[in-house]
């Protein structure tokens, strides 16, 4: 991992069109501003990982289970 030290309001540039700027530092919290092309997804990592995990779980569903669900709904 590349490690860079930056101060308040300083920026790093990634490639031609991604910039990350330190906007605010308070105690152990850092506010970052990211400017990137709109097609680049920017997420908090823990949320992204949770959604990825949930998608992987979802891909394991089988037809029989879903048929049972269908039947439960129908009987309600």
């Amino acid at each position, binding site marked *: 991992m590349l490690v860079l030290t930056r101060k308040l309001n300083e920026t790093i540039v990634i490639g031609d069109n991604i910039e990350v700027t330190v906007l605010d530092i308070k105690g152990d919290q850092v506010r970052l501003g990211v400017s990137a092309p*709109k*097609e680049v*997804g920017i*997420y908090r990592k823990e*949320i*992204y990982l*949770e*959604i*990825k*995990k*949930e*998608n*992987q*779980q*979802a*891909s*394991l*569903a*089988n*037809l029989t*289970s*879903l*048929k*049972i*669900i*269908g039947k*439960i*709904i*129908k009987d309600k």
Partner: protein
Amino acid sequence: MLIETKHFGKVEVAEADLISFVEGIPGFPNLHRYVLLGDNDENNPFLWLQAVDMPETSFVVIQPKLFLPNYQPRLNNEILEILEIEDLNQVLHYSITVVPEDVLQIRTNLQAPIVINTRNNKAKQVILNQPEYKLRYYIFQELKGGTGDACANQKAK
């Protein structure tokens, strides 16, 4: 075109019905073409979002508005631009659903719906910034215990 599917064998689908995920979806970044398949049972509100180029990848999805009529994801301008959305009435939302062995624990992801622009079939799994919409919404429990309104259920807990 004829595609191989996880649950229904070979299925003929029209090119016009292909749904295009430019970025893929989290966990499956290399799959860009999907199709929605039903099982021809009109009582079953669930559909399968089947990857066209990977037969074993298929997700159960449902339209949240079927059980939460007020479900209203806020889409920012970047999403509108990426999907070329001009009219919000042409947008459909589906939530990806986990069906565990204990089927009563079925849960669906309201925090990150699949947003489809039906005009051009461009789609994206959008991560919302609306805390009232849960990542794991347990459909049966929520509907039994509440008013059918996600906000109310959230506050009750």
